[in-house]
């Protein structure tokens, strides 16, 4: 395998407190060394040198929630199309929620996914196992076998549990196998098939609405169960102020909980929704300014550990209809970096915090050896240009899903190279 020298880049590796120009050396698919000052006597003959001057070099991004739509919904996206979108986004590891078709509740499905990932030459697709059989919310899945097969965590995606008792048992059982439980907080009887935040926007346009409490009550409930069961708990894609505050209190109290937020929730609110434009139909719904500001603050103070894309590509038909009838979700991998950089520009977080939330912090949640540039770790990196402007258009887009509210807009900041286990999987 080739030896790569990435030179003159601004290295940003929050786990190791590096934020300086220097060189990164890769060999045999691993990181050999990072040098930020002249080093005498370092003997490295590179097969390939990448000049990264005026660009940033960081660990590859780790995305906690990416729907590949494969297996089962290849009309929306395939493992090949969506992992190439991931590569273009600088994402070198991704977690696949269990709501594929069939559901990830047997070893066979896990193997199928691994096979497909291998054929797509994309290394780190981490399936998340279903917490209950068929995601039906009532009977436990074979979590141990699924962990053996390579599942990284367990979750019921956004499918509700039939009772709190089942959730409790599932958390206990996961805990006995040291599995991380990923929980999507929502009380379905309160969200009541809504499609927009319960606020001024839904009121004006007469849309079925979802109160903030449908999320924050679920957070509160599950925090109680986390204490009762002692399980490692991760909240996925929180969207509201009160959820963030409850998680902050729980952490202070000493619970083993973590949380992530979808990148678009840090930018868009109900006020930004173009009336009846289904590209803005997302769950949880875009909330208010107050929520957005709290989410940003919680990200900065570490309450929210990670940023994810919550990538959900759709076919055209899924978004062609009256707003409430369309399917929720945004194709969001490829806007991950520019939108993170926009947070930095808005002074919501520092670049180092943004990279941390995309690299070593999700790695810690998943307990994987990745997310930093420490010697010996897999050579998963990305190189990005914070100044490059690019237009979101068919020519510049890899995902099969074009469902983004940003379609046609010009983004600032672009991943120019992505390296996975020492192999260049994306290069502009």
């Amino acid at each position, binding site marked *: 395998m080739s030896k790569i020298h990435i030179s003159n880049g601004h290295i940003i590796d929050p786990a190791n407190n590096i934020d300086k120009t220097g060189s990164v050396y890769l060999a045999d698919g691993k990181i050999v060394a990072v040098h930020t000052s002249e080093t005498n006597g370092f003997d490295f003959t590179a097969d390939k040198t990448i000049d990264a001057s005026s660009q940033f070099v960081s660990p590859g991004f780790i995305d906690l929630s990416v729907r590949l739509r494969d297996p089962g919904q290849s009309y929306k996206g395939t493992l090949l199309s969506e992992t190439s979108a991931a590569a273009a986004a600088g994402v070198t590891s991704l977690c696949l929620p269990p709501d594929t078709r069939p559901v990830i509740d047997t070893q066979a499905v896990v193997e199928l996914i691994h096979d497909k990932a291998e054929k797509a030459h994309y290394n780190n697709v981490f399936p998340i196992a279903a917490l209950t059989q068929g995601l039906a919310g009532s009977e436990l899945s074979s979590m141990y076998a699924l962990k053996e097969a390579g599942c990284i965590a367990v979750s019921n995606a956004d499918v509700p549990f039939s009772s709190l008792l089942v959730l409790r048992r599932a958390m206990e059982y996961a805990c006995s196998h040291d599995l991380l439980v990923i929980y999507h907080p929502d009380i379905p009887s309160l969200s009541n098939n809504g499609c927009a935040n319960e*606020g001024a926007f839904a*009121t004006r346009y*007469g*849309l079925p609405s979802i109160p903030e409490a449908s999320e924050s009550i679920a957070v509160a409930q599950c925090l109680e169960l986390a204490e009762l069961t002692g399980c490692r708990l991760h909240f996925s894609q929180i969207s509201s102020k009160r959820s963030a505050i409850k998680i902050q209190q729980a952490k202070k109290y000493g619970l083993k909980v973590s949380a992530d937020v979808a990148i678009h929730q840090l930018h868009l609110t109900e006020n930004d929704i173009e009336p009846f434009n289904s590209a803005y139909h997302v769950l949880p719904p875009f909330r208010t300014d107050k929520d957005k500001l709290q989410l940003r603050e919680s990200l900065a103070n570490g309450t929210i550990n990670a940023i994810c894309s919550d990538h959900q590509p759709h076919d055209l038909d899924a978004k062609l209809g009256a707003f409430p009838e369309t399917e929720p979700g945004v194709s969001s991998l490829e806007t991950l970096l520019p939108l993170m950089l926009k947070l930095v520009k808005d002074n919501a977080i520092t670049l180092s915090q943004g990279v941390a939330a995309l690299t070593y912090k999700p790695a810690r949640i998943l307990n994987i050896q990745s997310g930093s540039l420490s010697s010996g770790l897999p050579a998963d990196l990305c190189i990005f240009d914070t100044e490059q402007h690019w237009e979101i258009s068919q020519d510049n887009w890899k995902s099969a899903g074009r469902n983004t509210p940003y379609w046609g807009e010009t983004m600032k900041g672009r991943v120019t190279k992505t390296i996975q286990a020492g192999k260049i999987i994306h290069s502009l």
Partner: protein
Amino acid sequence: MTNIQLNQNGKLKHFLSIDGLNEPILTEILNTAESFTSMSKQQVKKVPLLRGKTIVNLFFENSTRTRTTFELAATRLSADVLSLNIATSATSKGESLLDTIHNLEAMHVDMFVVRHAISGAGHFIAQNTAPHISVINAGDGQHAHPTQAMLDMFTIRQYKQDFKPLKVAIIGDILHSRVARSQIQALNVLGVKEIRVIAPKTLLPSHVESLGVVVYNNLEEGLAGVDVVIMLRLQKERMTAALLPSEREYFKCFGLTEARLKLAKPDAIVMHPGPINRGVEMESSIADGPQSVILQQVSNGIAVRMAIMSLTMQHNGVAQ
């Protein structure tokens, strides 16, 4: 965002919602409707404005009343009218909304009048139909029912002339009411002094004040000194959804009685979009009483819908 209802000259091309329309546009509708009212009293109740045009009433939700007035309005404009009850036809065979629309487009129709149970259906059709076709929203989900709102405005103007000094109370299920949303927007555009909504909290949308209304949970307080009383229809299913305990209790708190009506101005008018649940929303004696203008609303509905149909067709460049 540009208002898809307007053509490049800022004139009405579709009529989907009151949202985004200004006072001159609403007044133009009211004035045009005025010119049609005398016509219904004539021997020959027809004008040739839309002769040779085909109007399709697409009703994905059943409604005899609204559909009938649209049919009459179109007929009096000399258009050919086709009424389709899609609730019981194509979409139940799995045909998508858009396929239905495209099929009808292929038959060279000129206007769709659409009623649909989902909010935003009218906008969706307007955005996806051929450019020469006008779309009129005859009610979409809980979003808008702008022709009903305009006929209500027309009726208010008939009795009160000037909108500016008026205090208007809207009573009942605001949460689920597309009529109320459109009325509130229209009343605000026309510049009434005050709009009150009166309902229990379970029947009010969150942030209802953001629509530009004052909220009352008590009917007596809300009725004091108003010029116009608009009652909304209460659907039976509100009881099963735990929004209200019973019709009886609703009538006790929010039913319009003769005694309560006395709290409003002596010359206050009482309106209702119909059909009335007598003894639930109001006493029968009020519905049939001297202050009720409910049947006048129905008659006005035809003239107002004629106005809206002819104006949108004109601005789409197809009327003669």
